[in-house]
């Protein structure tokens, strides 16, 4: 079965993603599941350079 999707130009092998704030950067779950099964990972809002909290 072909599960490929195109999300606004982003080609994903399937439409299954993980929501922002539930999955860290993905690597935190590396040992628990095969990340390659996912169509994509949605991270929290992020920035190019580290930005202090306070």
């Amino acid at each position: 079965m072909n599960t490929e999707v195109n999300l606004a130009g982003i080609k994903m092998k399937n439409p299954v993603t993980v929501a922002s704030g539930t999955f860290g950067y993905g690597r935190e779950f590396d040992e628990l599941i095969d990340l390659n099964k996912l169509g994509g990972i949605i991270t929290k809002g992020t920035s190019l350079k580290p930005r202090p909290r306070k």
Partner: protein
Amino acid sequence: MTQSHGQFINIRVSDGVEPLLRRPISIHNIEGTNIEFIFQVKGKGTNILAEKEVGDKIDILGPLGKGTFKYEGAKNIAIIGGGIGIFPLYELAKEARKTAKVNMYLGFRSKDFVVLEDEYRKVSDKFILTTDDGTYGNKGYAIDFLKEDLKQENIDMIFACGPLPMLKAVQSLAKETKIPCQISLEERMGCGIGVCLGCAVKVNAGDQEIYTHVCKAGPVFDSNIVEI
């Protein structure tokens, strides 16, 4: 369950989504296959938890936290706790006492807030209880009694858990006296397992400042590296 001190469990308080997030509560004591935790009723979640009855089943996730209290090699330790922060210190004292002298300093706001005095006294070699207003025990702050004792006691490790001002004072004291010190931190948590990244805390890693997470790298940290 392996014996680590200072970990917590993340407790599901409702079957539905109201409230959604689990409540992180420290482990107070481990006895065989039983764990004990104590909590203060503060909001919606803890209110629901307080309604549970003996025999009810609850859904817990844990034990959580890689940062635990470590006392190997210590012979004369000081444990200092404030208010409800004293709860995770019990198990540490009970176990550490097998190989070290335990000097316990507990501080509470006033007589009404004093809890578990007898239980903590039993797991201490030296026991000091203070209330800010002097309505019970010694008047003043627990840390001042520790500072006084440091003049003649050779304390080789300090462990602390309690309100932020107390932890900051302990952190300064440890820095000044160069006594190794471990503090247990508290932060509002979402997942409790290091993926929502909500409980971030800044630490010094060499010349770098990075953020790590109280739920995963903590809740116990070396007081010299963490910024509070």
